[in-house]
Structures are given as structure tokens and as C-alpha cells.
């Protein structure tokens, strides 16, 4: 917590050759309250070239600044404000940083120049799209305004009708624009994609910000894409947003194949776990030990555990780097326990997969698990890391145990939509590259399956006795 105790200190104001003693007090982000010492008098509006004081033994000189008077405030005569370079006094006093407000402009030339290598036809495409989106947004906003005074229920019905008619047509328009876009960028290099994606987002930012879906993928408030809020949006696949236009811009990406693939994989995992219970481990008296790696909110567990009997058969270990996601998972499971009137055996590990290999907690789990799955993780791991992680997971399987790992395929039809519009980049693999991750583990039986959209693969692994 930042300590906001009133900060008082001795300082000098420099005016020409003169050094004027004052007492100053932190007053706000951009002003100081001051009192002149030794009976000095200054006119309102007086300019000083520098404010000088010492902070933690270091001399700070900032300015120029101006004196503004104010009705007497606890003995202070007025305030000092900066007249050219504006310094952030919160940063200075509470974060120990000397930060000029204008520093935001520091990168201006770089940013302006970043558009220089944009291809002409891409520029044209973006300009046309920008125009069209403005037209659509205006029309939808105008309609919204016309039924704004209706009662809530009626508003809802009117909006639904608009969405079902002109709304769906707009979504088809977006599909067509995406096809056109893919034709333009097809031969771009990695660097070209990056640069053109940045350009597109800058140009279409206001439209992106209308969509809760796109806003979240772009801003990544928890520091990574695909957090639990995002997952929920994808699973819900509803019209969310503050306007009809916003709702459509939200629904469009959540209907796209990659989002459908995320919904599909939830079913696939549920079926796989149910199968382990009903066939592989049917006669076993032991609990089925399951590890979910990068589990997120683990909504799928609610689909797996539908009866008290189910709960008695499973033991879950949920690992994630995000403590918030784990506590969401925990509270879901607590509710489920209440609903089913039974206990669910679950352990939580708040670890990053990249550092988990060293944790003693995981060492205790060697050869422990009957089933391991990881869905939204390998899409972020480059080959050296993916190899190390998958080998370690394999070690924690018991003989006869199985593992299912998800990874989006290089041909994901949503790939460039995600990269350019959503600022959501995955590490894509071919089937061959995926299987190759386990090539140092000869005892592993592997095969690759696809879910229905064909955009996501599952590496299914069985551990054999070697």
C-alpha cells in the first residue's frame, strides 16, 4: 500500500539569482502547497525557474513553475504548479520516480513511423473497413436510441429482433471482410503480420473497444490471454455489450471456429474422464487421480461430477499460475458439493508450469496420476519448454495412465482474426511437431485427434511399462 501521509519538506524556489526559502507540502498529483519563509512576499503568477529540494539525500531540481494564490489553507499561502515540464508528484513521492507527464510523447516519432511499411492494399482495406464499420455503428446506434425509452422487456424484444435481422447480416458482412483480409495477408512474413496487425488495431480501436470480448483479449487485465473471464465469455457464447453494435462485435468472435473449438474441448474432456471411470478404472477400488495443468476455472469438472457417486470416484489436482482462477474453481466446487451433498476431493497448486518442475510438491506426485489433461497451455509453450513440461507430466503418470494435451493446429481458421483483431497469438503446431514433443520418451503410445472444427488437436498419450 502506498503511504499517503502528508509530506512536508523544506525547499527553495529560484528566481533569477535569488534563492527563496519555502516550506512545501504534497497537495495533489500536480501541485504543492507552499508557505514562504523569512517574510518573503510573492505576487500571484510569479514565475520561478526551479524548485529545489532534497529527497533521500538526493538533490531534486524541477521547474519552471508558477505560484498561484489560494485562500489560506492551514497556513499555506498558495500553490506551486509546473509551467512547462509537468512532473507527476505521486510518482515522485510514492514511487520514487521522476516522471514527466509529457513522457507519454517520448515514443511519438517511433509510433508515427511504425505505419511506414504498411502495404498499400492493406491501407485501403483498413480505410474501407473503417468507413463501413462507422456506417454500421451509426445505424445500430440510431436504432438503439429510438427504442431507448421503452420498458426493459420491450427493449429486449426489439433488440433481439434487430439482431436476428440486420444484426446477423452485419455478422455475415464481417465474415466476408475477414475472407477478403486473409487474401491480402496470405504471403506476409511474421514481421509483416505483426506490423499490419498493430496498424489494424490502431485504426479500428474504437470498434474493438465496443466488444467486451475483443476488449478483454486486447487489454489482458490479468497479464495473459484466455483468463477465466475470457473462458466464461467463450462458454456462454451470448450477445454481451452495452449496445446492439457492441453485442454483435462480441458475438462474432465467440462464434468463430477457435471459440467453438474451446467449447468442444470441454465436452471432449468430460467424455474422456467419464470413460476412464466407466471402463479403464471400472473395477478399481482406488480413486481416479486426475491432474489438470493450467486448469483455469475448471468448469468442465462440473460436467464430470454429476452425482455423489461420481465425486466418490475422483481425486482432482488443479494447477494454475493464476490464484484468482484457482479460487474461482474452488468456489464452483464448493457450490457443487452443496448441491450434491457430498465432498469433492481436490487439491490446488498455485504454480507456474515454467517453474513447477523444481517444486518439491510436484516431486511427491511422481507416478501418481491416472489421468492428466491440459487444454489451453501448450499453445503458449515453444518447443524446448513444451518438451520439458510434457516429459515431466509423463513422469507423473502411473503405468497405464493416460494424458490428453490440447494444441491449436497451424491451420486454425481463426488464426489471423485472433492475431490481428484480438491481439491473441498462439504457438501453433502441426500433428508431426506435436507428436515429436514426446520423441525422447519411447514408452509413450501417442496419437493425435481433432475436435469437430478441425482447429484444435489433442495429443493422446498412454504410458506403457518399458
Amino acid at each position: 500500500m502506498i503511504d499517503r501521509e502528508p509530506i512536508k519538506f523544506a525547499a527553495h524556489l529560484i528566481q533569477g539569482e535569488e534563492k527563496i526559502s519555502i516550506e512545501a507540502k504534497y497537495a495533489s498529483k500536480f501541485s504543492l502547497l507552499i508557505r514562504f519563509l523569512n517574510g518573503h512576499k510573492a505576487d500571484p503568477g510569479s514565475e520561478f525557474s526551479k524548485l529545489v529540494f532534497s529527497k533521500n539525500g538526493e538533490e531534486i531540481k524541477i521547474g519552471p513553475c508558477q505560484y498561484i494564490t489560494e485562500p489560506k489553507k492551514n497556513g499555506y499561502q498558495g500553490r506551486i504548479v509546473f509551467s512547462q515540464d509537468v512532473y507527476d508528484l505521486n510518482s515522485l513521492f510514492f514511487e520514487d520516480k521522476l516522471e514527466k507527464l509529457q513522457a507519454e510523447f517520448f515514443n511519438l516519432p517511433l509510433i508515427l513511423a511504425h505505419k511506414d511499411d504498411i502495404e498499400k492494399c492493406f491501407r485501403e482495406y483498413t480505410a474501407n473497413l473503417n468507413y463501413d464499420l462507422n456506417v454500421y455503428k451509426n445505424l445500430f446506434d440510431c436504432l438503439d436510441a429510438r427504442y431507448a425509452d421503452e420498458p426493459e422487456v420491450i427493449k429486449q424484444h426489439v433488440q433481439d429482433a434487430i439482431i436476428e435481422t440486420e444484426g446477423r447480416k452485419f455478422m455475415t458482412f464481417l465474415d466476408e471482410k475477414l475472407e477478403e483480409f486473409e487474401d491480402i495477408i496470405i504471403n506476409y512474413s511474421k514481421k509483416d503480420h505483426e506490423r499490419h496487425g498493430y496498424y489494424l488495431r490502431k485504426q479500428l480501436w474504437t470498434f474493438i473497444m465496443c466488444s467486451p470480448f475483443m476488449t478483454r483479449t486486447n487489454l489482458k487485465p490479468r497479464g495473459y490471454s484466455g483468463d477465466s473471464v475470457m473462458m466464461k465469455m467463450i462458454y456462454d457464447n451470448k450477445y454481451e455489450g452495452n449496445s446492439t453494435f457492441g453485442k454483435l462485435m462480441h458475438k462474432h468472435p465467440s462464434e468463430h471456429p477457435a471459440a467453438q473449438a474451446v467449447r468442444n474441448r470441454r465436452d471432449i474432456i468430460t467424455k474422456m474422464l467419464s470413460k476412464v471411470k466407466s471402463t479403464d478404472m471400472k473395477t478399481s477400488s482406488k480413486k481416479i487421480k486426475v491432474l489438470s495443468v493450467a486448469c483455469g476455472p475448471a468448469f468442465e469438472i462440473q460436467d464430470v461430477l454429476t452425482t455423489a457417486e461420481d465425486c466418490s470416484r475422483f481425486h482432482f489436482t488443479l494447477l494454475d499460475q493464476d490464484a484468482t482462477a484457482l479460487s474461482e474453481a474452488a468456489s464452483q466446487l464448493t457450490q457443487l458439493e452443496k448441491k450434491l451433498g457430498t465432498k469433492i476431493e481436490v487439491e490446488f497448486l498455485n504454480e507456474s508450469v515454467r517453474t513447477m518442475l523444481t517444486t518439491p510438491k510436484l516431486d511427491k506426485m511422481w507416478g501418481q496420476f491416472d489421468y492428466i489433461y491440459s487444454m489451453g497451455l501448450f499453445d503458449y509453450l515453444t518447443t524446448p519448454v513444451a518438451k520439458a513440461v510434457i516429459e515431466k507430466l509423463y513422469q507423473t503418470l502411473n503405468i497405464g495412465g493416460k494424458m490428453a494435451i490440447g494444441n491449436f493446429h497451424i491451420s486454425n481458421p481463426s488464426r489471423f482474426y485472433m492475431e490481428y483483431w484480438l491481439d491473441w497469438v498462439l504457438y501453433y503446431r502441426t500433428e508431426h511437431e506435436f507428436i515429436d514433443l514426446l520423441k525422447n520418451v519411447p514408452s509413450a503410445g501417442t496419437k493425435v485427434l481433432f475436435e469437430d472444427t478441425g482447429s484444435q488437436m489433442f495429443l493422446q498419450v498412454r504410458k506403457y511399462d518399458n
Partner: protein
Amino acid sequence: MNNSIEFDVKPDWDEIEKVRNESADFLQSHELSDDTIHSLSMIISELIENGLKYGDFKTEGNKVVVIINVATNMITVEVLNPVDESAYEHLSKLDKTIQWIRGYQDPFEAYIERIKEVSKKPLHDMESGIGLVRIAYEGNALLDFFVAENNMLNVSVVSNLEKGDRVSS
């Protein structure tokens, strides 16, 4: 021709220049363009520098290991260094930083954000913290890392070889 090469780097700052030159020779033998070699050399130096700065060299014989692999359309550089508990705080910063950089489609965004931060002058000397961002932006490469069971940190970079990255194309 060998596709991989490995260097042992003693914990000594002067070693960086040596490995830089030797790895440049290796990359040259794979007919990579001067620009590609130049940016890979920058990447290798930044990673070794970090390895030396944050690694654990209290035990005699501890060293940084550099492994370079050139495949048909991809180059991988791995830099390994031993870590002890005192590095854990750094590992979590490394984790956050890498995920943050890779959260942008265009590493340019991470680069300008970082430069802006650096321009807000901290009153006390702090690390400039620009190394990894440079690797992603100027080096056009994907960063990742893991810590192996033997407490060896492995920071890696993969970089696609595209048209123009080789001399012959």
C-alpha cells in the same frame, strides 16, 4: 555440417565477447545473412548477460551453457544457468515479463511501453530492464523458459528463418 553447437561459458564478463564471435562463425557456416547473424548475436549476448547476472556461481565449476540449433526453417538458442533460492524472485519477474511481451502480437508494443517506463527516471539506480524486450522486438524472436529439476534455468529463443534470412536466398 553440424546443426548444433554448444558452448560452456565461465562466469566472467569477458567470455561474452568470445562466445559471440564463435557463435557468429558457426552461424556464418550455415550461410545466414549478416542481419540474421547480427540479431542472433545480440540475443546471445543479452541472454548470457542475464545468465551471469542472475545465475548462481557460488559453487566451483558452475557455468552458463549456450546451445544453438539451426534447422531448416528455425533457429533455437538456449541459454542455461544454475539458479538458487535467491533467484526465485527474478524467476517470477522473468515469467511475468515473458508472458507480457508475448501477449502482444507486435513486440513493438512491448518495446515502446518499456522505453516509456525507462524514460520515467527512477531516483535510485534500477536495471534498465530492456534486454528481453530487445530480443523480442529487434531480434524478432519468441522467448520462453523453464527451470529443470536440477535447478538449471533454461531461457530459450526460437526464431523463424524466412525469405532473406539466408545468404543464398
